[in-house]
């Protein structure tokens, strides 16, 4: 195309002049950016509600706390292990539910396949509200509704994950190659067939990748659900803290790190096998 439209050299010279001006503008914007950051930070540090003497004594306090945590108490393990298993179960079941619910939401929320504007906007509202509210806040809500226990945890994990999954899967539907859809349309295939042959195969890699990723995230989030009463290892952590059992605290922390690493290792293995 450019070979059709390249103008005389005179014009080219003009263009390079424009380019220089743009760089100057960029430099100016960069300066503005630095200035904004500096001003923001100055305002923040000078007005934040922090009691500074506590800041100076913080290293000693933290050191003190850590020294009380050592060594971790293996005696807490009989309580910790079932709680860890419950944590993983909450994450997994929550992921399964979220996947089932997020698929239609993703489909209706993808602008290129959504049947109509109303469905599109309903799906988008679901996605935004699900994503913007943290798992722990969902957990607070579900503990209030369902009472304490792992069921509230599963609901919290599910409700937070729906938006995450639906957003990413919906984006991959929007980005897929439209050609196969047209090819199947023109062969007289029905909508369900088009989904099965043209959409699902193209979206499948993203689907697996985000599902695995979300399971990994859900394990992390499930470790704290218990702190608001929604099941899992978080409850033991809260109890140990409240009773000042520092060596139990460190044992729980240690096992949380282990279970999160476990989730990370499993996901990286599955990812390698699947993709």
């Amino acid at each position, binding site marked *: 195309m450019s070979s059709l*439209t390249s103008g005389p050299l005179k014009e080219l010279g003009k263009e390079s002049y424009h380019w220089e001006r743009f760089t100057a503008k960029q430099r100016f914007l960069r300066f503005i950016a630095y200035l904004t950051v500096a001003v923001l930070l100055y305002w923040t540090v000078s007005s934040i509600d922090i009691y500074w003497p506590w800041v100076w004594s913080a290293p000693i306090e933290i050191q003190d706390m850590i020294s009380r945590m050592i060594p971790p108490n293996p005696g807490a393990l009989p309580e910790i292990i079932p709680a860890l298993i419950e944590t993983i179960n909450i994450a997994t079941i929550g992921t399964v539910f979220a996947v089932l619910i997020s698929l239609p939401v993703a489909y209706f929320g993808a602008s290129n396949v959504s049947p109509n504007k109303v469905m599109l906007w309903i799906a988008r509202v679901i996605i935004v509200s699900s994503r913007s509210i943290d798992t722990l806040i969902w957990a607070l809500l579900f503990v209030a509704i369902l009472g304490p226990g792992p069921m509230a945890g599963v609901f919290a994990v599910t409700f937070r994950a729906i938006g995450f999954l639906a957003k990413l899967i919906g984006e991959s539907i929007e980005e897929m190659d439209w*050609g196969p859809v047209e*090819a199947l349309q023109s*062969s*007289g*295939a029905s909508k369900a067939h088009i989904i099965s042959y043209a959409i699902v*195969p*193209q979206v*499948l890699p993203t689907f697996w990748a985000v599902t695995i990723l979300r399971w990994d995230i859900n394990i992390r989030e499930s470790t704290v659900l218990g702190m608001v009463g929604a099941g899992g290892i978080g409850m033991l952590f809260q109890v140990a803290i409240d009773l000042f059992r520092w060596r139990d605290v460190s044992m729980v922390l240690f096992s949380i790190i282990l279970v999160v690493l476990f989730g990370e290792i499993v996901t990286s293995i599955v990812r390698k096998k699947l993709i």
Partner: protein
Amino acid sequence: MLEIKNLVKSYGNGERVLKGLNFSTGDKKLTAIIGSSGAGKSTMLRCINRLVTADSGEILLDGVDLLKLRGKSLQNARRQIGMIFQGYNLVDRLTVMENVLSGRLGYVSLMQGVFRKFPAEDVDHAYQMLKRVGLSQYINKRCDELSGGERQRVGAARALMQNPRILLADEPTASLDPKTSELIMELIANLAEEMDLPVLINLHNVAQAKHYAARIVGLRDGVMVFDGKPDELTNEHLEHIYTAKAELKEQLGHKPRSKR
């Protein structure tokens, strides 16, 4: 028998691409449609199988007006019309066999399609079709492992699986190297002859059009400006077909470079 009467189509920006096109073909032979890009070749084919919806006019396939169909009857009409695409439009992550069988989707039930349980005769037919296009050894290969020419052969097999009454091809060789392009044209022409099918094929390569077609149609600015046998197509005709509108030329010449 395909009859197009007074077909009009404009896109969102208001520019009319087809301005009252008339065309008909009943012969089981290959018709090539030539014309510069933007002349409406693609739009014409895509109006026939309703990938785009025409504004007005009629498209009659064996007496049925395709533009009036909806839902199930549209699906039934579409399976009578095979189409081969410039970009192959295969599902890369499915196997060759699945792509070929997907040409039968207009005929099978939802469950048969979704669970890949096609009737035995469809599977046989697909296998023979793949053998015919020389790809039977690749049945369970994924389409993203194939070369461009091989993909287009799968695309042709898929279109013919529909048992169409007419075959459309939208620049089927434009994405291929010259040698493969010849092979694919040869294949499409032979298959159409073997299956006794009328073919409408958009081509940008005039030499190919002259060589393979029994009839050549020239489009310019949304209307037909030539219709005849290949040996009737003279250089004057070609110049007429491929010369863009004067004002369009002017626009191109003065387009600012930054707009690409």
